[in-house]
């Protein structure tokens, strides 16, 4: 009966949150603020390979708790860090121990194709070289990344590539199945997107206080404050669902509904935040000088990647309403 489906899984009351998670999050926030400058990256893109290695040495590419990983990804998304952290985390789930070690230590890069079927993959998170995990014949396989064609993208912090495995076949089957991999991918994507949404909310809120017109801060007008409240609600709802999905993954068991919901909620929150963010910044918001467009670009990337909101809702509807759908 759909009544049972309507009430999701019961999760631990603390969602598995531990004191050290809080420390991890505040350290991550501080480190990223010190070491990464988004506008400088847009002015002069660099690979940040050293920063990547440093983050790996701090253990950011190994997953012990999905909740802790989600909190980290949120911080990464907040600054739009242009490093392939989520693909490495996902690849590590799929690879055998020796390859996994090379990836989690930061020695080798890795990426994962989950958006399209092969043998021509599109929208693959771009890396210069390394390992490649992709679906094939109903399972997940891995091999060395063949030569790729970089795509021209709107969001420069999310470079993607086209990969053809027609001539360089994937060499071995992974342990993890595609469904489990996708659930993890949705969660990480949601957490990173949530961070971006939070950042737009906070910069728009600051602007609404600082910018004055008719001798008053524009944030004192309800035409400005109420849309901001709506953005905040979308962000808080997304955060609740991201945390719940991470806790569900940590607990094991069925996670498809929780992870899809988190993906939809976070991408919709950023979509709304970016739309209102540009508008509420007024004439400044429409210029290159205002940082909001970096996040607007991320919204365009995030909503469609790993399945658009409509596709996820379509599947959620089937899970809820259609008998015999598992």
């Amino acid at each position: 009966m759909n009544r049972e489906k309507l009430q999701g899984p019961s999760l631990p009351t603390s969602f598995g949150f531990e004191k050290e998670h809080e420390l991890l999050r505040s350290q991550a926030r501080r480190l990223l603020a010190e070491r990464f400058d988004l506008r400088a990256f847009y002015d002069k893109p660099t690979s940040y390979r050293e920063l990547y290695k440093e983050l790996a040495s701090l253990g950011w590419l190994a997953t012990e708790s999905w909740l802790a990983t989600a909190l980290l990804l949120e911080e990464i998304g907040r600054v739009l860090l242009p490093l392939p952290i989520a693909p490495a985390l996902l690849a590590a789930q799929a690879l055998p121990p020796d390859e996994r070690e090379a990836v989690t230590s930061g020695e080798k890069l890795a990426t994962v194709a989950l958006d399209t079927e092969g043998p021509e993959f599109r929208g693959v998170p771009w890396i210069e070289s390394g390992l490649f995990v992709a679906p094939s014949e109903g399972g997940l396989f891995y091999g060395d990344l063949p030569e790729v064609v970089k795509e021209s993208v709107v969001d420069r912090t999310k470079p993607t590539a086209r990969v053809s495995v027609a001539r360089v076949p994937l060499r071995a089957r992974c342990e993890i199945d595609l469904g489990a991999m996708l659930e993890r991918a949705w969660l990480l994507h949601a957490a990173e997107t949530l961070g971006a949404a939070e950042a737009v909310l906070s910069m728009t809120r600051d602007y609404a206080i600082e910018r004055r017109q008719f001798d008053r801060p524009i944030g004192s007008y309800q035409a400005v404050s109420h849309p901001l409240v709506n953005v905040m609600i979308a962000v808080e709802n997304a955060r609740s669902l991201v945390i719940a999905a991470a806790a569900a993954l940590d607990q094991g068991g069925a996670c498809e509904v929780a992870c899809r919901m988190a993906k939809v909620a976070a991408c919709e929150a950023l979509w709304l935040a970016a739309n209102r963010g540009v508008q509420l910044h007024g004439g400044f918001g429409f210029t290159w000088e205002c940082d909001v467009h970096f996040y607007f670009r991320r919204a365009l990337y995030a909503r469609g990647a790993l399945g658009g909101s409509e596709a996820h809702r379509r599947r959620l509807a089937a899970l809820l309403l259609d008998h015999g759908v598992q």
Partner: protein
Amino acid sequence: MSELDAFRDEVRSWIREHRPAPPDFVLPQSFLEVETKEQLDYLRAWQRALFDAGYLGYDAPREYGGRGVDQARHAIVMGELARARAPFLLNAIGLRWVMPTILHYGTEAQKRFFVEPILSAEHLWCQGFSEPEAGSDLASLRARAEREGDRYYVSGHKVWTTLAHFADYMILLARTDPEAHKYAGLSYFLFPMKTSGVIIQPLVKMSGEGGFNQVIFDRAPMPADALLGEEGQGWDVAMTTLTFERGAAGVGGEASAASAEALSRLIELAEKVGAAEDPVFRDRLVALWIDVEAARQGERRSKVAALSADRPLALPMMQKLVRSEIEQRIAELGCQLMGDAARLSIDDPEAPDRGEWPRAYMNSFGFTIGGGTSEIQRNLIAERVLGLPRSR
């Protein structure tokens, strides 16, 4: 099986065996619309039965007639009532708003006198805050309470007063010091309704139902010990009541259970009218489901301080706004699903679901307006959570 699971099973089977048979008259959808004596008696008996069975009072200490505070059991009882679609609790104002306020501000004597009769529905409660000229701007209210000897005498005009025509007591906000600043001059009373100088006039709601009143006080007397808290402390006490009314203290999962139940009724309706395969309906239903689940997880997250550390007031202050708007969207989608049958009222025997969807949609505005409108909620969130400048 854990102790709590056993308790849930026990409650579930008790409700199955003891719920009253559906009456031969139309029941209201919520405590806001109780209009007739037969509705009143039916609902009062049901709350009384639950109390006698020992299932009410897990939110009140034993020494005052409760079962001892036990959030988990309270949530189970409320969740099971929603799940069983059992009749609602008549004395909702007493249970959800008045009782926690009295437990917070009341004297020992007030707690001993008032708590148990609220649980048993022996005393019905109404709320006298709003006035014709004091709605969203509540603190500008003008009703006066003047002290003379060991009594106060009330004069003034309250409006939109749910259940006043049946209530034994009213939580009454009145001005005791007209010289003081508008917030500082207010006091909060536990006013006995069955007294001289109280005129109750029914108001008809947009749905055509009653249950709503205006109350005119003409030197209506009450004993001095009807004061809750100190004289001049009324605004703080009233804000505490509103905090409970808006669900900021966490409603123990009952709202989640009710929303899930409303969604499940919506799905049944869709199946009945052949819309369950319609992709437009399905997309909108799932969007609602996601919001309901987000509210459910948000309620749980609000209890883990570290998981809302960046914006601790956001979740509690969103509750009422988000819940009331979800309920409204569910009722609205129900009406849209009915297509041309949305024209049929509760009196038409062929109205799908006895016409409950149009009535629910109309009545849903009671919750997006009452207890602080959605617009006021957004102002409060903008100011207190986001730190934006005041909008006035």
